[in-house]
């Protein structure tokens, strides 16, 4: 695997962590390293063990075995010290319905030991930064899902953490709100915060993460940059539909041009080509079809999905995993 992480400048170093719930091995000798001021992604389907690992790294859960260092602190030996350096936004935005946004941030500030003016000032800063000023003095039960997420993220930022843990920060958000959160995350990284986030979406890991770990059934399956994962795990797929009459000819033309096999899906009458450079080849296919006077009724390129990645490395589909 290319660009393996070396030990210098590690913000997180997890070694051999194991956690068992009854007979279920939620984590099985897991290793994970995260570089300072980078975004590290933990990618996996439901029940993979992502939240369990986050909880262990943030002192909420103790592992049966293993070592966890965060920001130079041994989390298991000195959890109180670790808590001063981390921020956590859990999987379910844990904001109190009956408090206003401002009260929520103020309370967290005071709990971190700020005095009242400090906590007020910091709350105002975060409300501005997270675009919550207009809603600041409304109880959060009136907030949308995206606003709750942002507030929850705000609460984890109150004490300017060195390492920030985000458990599925964008699950359930609409695309616009998701992009907004991505921007906030990128902004934080620029300021030097180390971020570890979990996600079920490959495209999110792709867009945000400098390095990705794929976890399934409590085991780390594979790790690498988004680029290396995509090229090693899955390929782009070009899909097109032509009329029955043109099917055989289209297949022939594309195979000649791309020098690769074209699959025909008998059921849907679609042609499918696997490729490592989806966009370039898509254009090539389009040009070739035009030259041969063939008409594609549909033509598209798909990036490999998390499901494709899983199928490739585990031999089972992510969606079947429960």
């Amino acid at each position, binding site marked *: 695997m290319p660009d393996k992480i070396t030990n210098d400048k590690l913000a997180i170093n997890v070694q051999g962590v194991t956690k068992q719930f009854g007979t279920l091995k939620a984590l099985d000798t897991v290793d994970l390293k995260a570089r300072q001021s980078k975004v590290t992604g933990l990618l996996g389907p439901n029940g993979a063990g992502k939240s369990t690992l986050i909880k262990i790294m943030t002192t*909420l859960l103790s592992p049966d075995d293993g070592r966890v260092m965060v920001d130079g602190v041994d989390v298991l030996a000195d959890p109180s010290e670790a808590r001063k350096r981390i921020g956590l936004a859990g999987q379910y935005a844990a904001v109190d319905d009956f408090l206003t946004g401002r009260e929520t941030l103020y309370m967290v500030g005071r709990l971190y030991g700020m005095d009242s003016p400090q906590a007020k000032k910091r709350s105002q800063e975060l409300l501005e930064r997270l675009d919550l000023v207009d809603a600041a003095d409304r109880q959060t039960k009136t907030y949308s899902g995206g606003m709750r997420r942002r507030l929850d993220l705000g609460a984890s930022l109150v004490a300017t953490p060195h390492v920030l843990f985000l458990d599925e920060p964008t699950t359930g958000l609409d695309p616009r709100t998701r992009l907004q959160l991505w921007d906030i995350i990128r902004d934080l990284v620029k300021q030097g915060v180390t971020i570890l986030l979990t996600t079920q979406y490959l495209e999110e890991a792709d867009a945000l993460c400098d390095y990705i770990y794929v976890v399934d059934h409590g085991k780390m399956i594979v790790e690498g940059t988004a680029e290396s994962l995509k090229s090693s795990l899955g390929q782009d797929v070009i899909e097109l539909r032509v009329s029955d009459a043109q099917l055989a000819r289209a297949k022939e033309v594309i195979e000649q041009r791309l020098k690769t096999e074209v699959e025909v899906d008998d059921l849907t009458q679609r042609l499918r080509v696997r490729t490592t450079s989806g966009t370039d080849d898509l254009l090539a296919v389009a040009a070739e079809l035009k030259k041969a006077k063939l008409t594609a009724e549909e033509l598209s390129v798909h990036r490999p999905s998390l499901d494709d990645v899983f199928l490739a490395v585990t031999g089972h589909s992510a969606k079947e995993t429960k």
Partner: protein
Amino acid sequence: MSGVSNTLQIVNRNVKRNFRIPQLLIFSSIQPVVFLLLFNFVFGGAVGPESGGNYINFLLPGILAQTALFGAIQTGVGLAEDLNKGVVDRLRSLPIARYAVLAGRTIADSVRNVVVIAIMLAVGYLLGFRFQEGILYFLLAIGVIVLFAYAFSWVSATVGLLLRDSETVQVAGFLWVFPLVFASSVFVPVATMPSWLQVFANHQPVTEAVNAVRYLMQGMGSGDAVWHTLVWIAVLLTVFIPIAVWRYRKIQ
């Protein structure tokens, strides 16, 4: 010091919770008033004579103890809710004193109790309740009942941390609270019960607390009930604070 400040923040949060969620406010204030009215007018005629002729003076101290116990159930229910909603996880990820979350909730529930007790006393006054032993003993009685409720809040917190599902905690609450409330001197004199039940009813904390309040407010019975109640409160706190804190530390 920072532990105290942490606790005050959590108290503040929970007081807002207790007073801003309409269902909680209604449950904790209207329900005891309804009980007070119902029992006064339904049982008043039947039990009146045995209670010395003035049933409301006999009943109100009992209803105060009952309110304390029913209110205590909410400590455990609220804690279970916070556990399930991830609020407790958020708080546990902060560098705060470990006892702050529990202390903050039990103290906030005491604040609510003081308000509810004030409402009950006002309604009781309209129904004819008068304290007989002077303002000092009256305030002492209020102090005893608030402390008593506080001790049971810790029992309830322990139940909440053990069962962890708010609905289960609610149902379980009635299971442990009902026998304590009804097999006591809250509504009827213990002497009217079968003798085997009297053994339990005479010595359990609710009877002691009710008798203590009756002594302090009405001069009924013996003053021994007051220190018996204080001993019960001390015992409950000594046993249940460590258990609750231990369970809290074990949350996974």
